[in-house]
């Protein structure tokens, strides 16, 4: 692919992700939050695409934006919105909040000060064409066992959910 206007798209997508991310936590109406979250996820998908990870971007759209958010909205719609709006939105753990913010700030400063050397430099850039194949090879070859364990874990979660939700099986 011939990357066009990369800096523009990077800043545009980042700004969109940040703004909608802030909206997610500040909106009182849970449906509005969920919609904002969809936009966050979509802009993240765009960022993945710019990182030459089209497969991850596609999966992000299908699974998160198309699948999980649908379920989120499904559940939210069943909850009485008017009652949720009456409840206090932020709980009072501001101490922990400040601590977390401070830690994050320190991290940012560290990254800024140390520059790129914080993260290991990527030496080989994978050809975009092979990205999807590489994901497959790693998932089903190199990391087969963790992958299967993860899927087993999900299965357990599904069974648990069914048992909890259904009174009589």
């Amino acid at each position, binding site marked *: 692919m011939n990357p066009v206007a990369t800096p523009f798209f990077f800043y545009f997508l980042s700004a969109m992700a940040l703004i909608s991310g802030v909206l997610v936590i500040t909106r009182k109406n849970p449906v509005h939050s969920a919609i904002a979250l969809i936009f966050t996820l979509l802009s993240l998908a765009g960022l993945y695409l710019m990182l030459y990870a089209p497969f991850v971007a596609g999966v992000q759209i299908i699974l998160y934006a198309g699948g999980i958010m649908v379920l989120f909205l499904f559940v939210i719609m*069943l909850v*009485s919105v008017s009652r949720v709006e009456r409840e206090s939105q932020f709980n009072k753990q501001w101490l922990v909040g400040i601590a977390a913010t401070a830690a994050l700030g320190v991290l940012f400063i560290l990254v800024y000060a140390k520059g790129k050397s914080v993260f290991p430099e990527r030496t080989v850039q994978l050809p975009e064409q092979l990205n999807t194949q590489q994901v497959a090879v790693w998932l089903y070859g190199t990391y087969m066992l963790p992958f299967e364990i993860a899927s087993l874990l999900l299965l357990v979660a599904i069974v648990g959910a069914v048992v909890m*939700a259904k009174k009589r099986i």
Partner: protein
Amino acid sequence: MTDPTKSGGASHLDLAEREHTFLDANELVLNMGPQHPSTHGVLRVILKLDGEKVRGTECVIGYLHRGVEKIAENRTYTMFNPYVDRMDYVAAVSNGLGYCEAVEKLLNIEAPPRANYIRVILTELNRLASHMLWLGTHALDIGAITPLFYTFRDREEILKIYEKYCGARLTTHAFRIGGCLYETYDGFEADVKKFVSFVTPKIDEYEELLTTNRIWVERTRGVGVLSGPDCIDLGVTGPVLRASGVKWDLRKAKPYAAYSQFQFEIPTGQNGDTYDRYLVRVAEMRQSLRIVSQAVEGIPEGPIMAKVPKVLKPPVGEIYHSIEAPKGELGYFIVSDGSTQPYRIRVRPPSFVNLQALDKMVRGQLVADVVAVIGTLDIVLGEVDR
């Protein structure tokens, strides 16, 4: 039917209750009608839903209430005759037949045989028309749009015969007390015979579209089940009763008009579900055709009107007479005080009584089944509300 979560009062939301309402979701009250595509007019059903499941129903009727029984008390016997057509306007001829026969019985007169044959032909054609309309709309409720057009096309032929016979298509006022007002028109027999041979393959056509259609069978089988004893307890009559396996038809049980002279069978079902009701009605359409062809073959010559006084003054007394209308037992309870106006007329409407079974039939089923069950009960709101 009352919601325990609601009566508890929403003043304080403790954790247990919050969890309860979150996991079980709230009971949703859905107001179906009176303006709804498939409540067949102005029926209003208040559904209490748990998700898509029906927890309870309440029918709100009376939107079409015109006080027919009150009107009857202020009209003469003859003047009231056209009003009965406006109750079950889909089967107006049957309504008229029931009323005329009831008054005749009260007057202790009998319609001449030729009139009785004409009555049987027109009434059975009317049953066919009513069932056709039912089939089309019922299929439409379940989502098949095509049968509606097929059945309306063929119903049109019946209405044409009516129009030629008495000038009206829907609310025909075809019969008079004591017989029929009009002699059959030239070519009536030929028209009816032509219609019978025309419509027999058409019924096969409807069946081809639906009877073995997998989706149709899945949508109707096991839906809205009523057992025979349930039907009797709820007073449900007509095809709904017969689909539950009770072989009872007033045309056989207490024959009226000329029905004792015809060969026909009473189709019954076994399971009492929507699918059986469909089959029973389709079989009834074929039996009606059978009666019509017998009647048109054997129609006797003679007068069409009994000797009826100009001013009808039935002797003091009461009478209950009922006929097998397309929807079930249609009864007229008439009290005469010896004057020209009935002292009281009570109509026993099959749709009204059958509709009462709705709650029993849909409880625990899904919203989509409510629509199917309303369709399968074959109600006409004009008759429910009168």
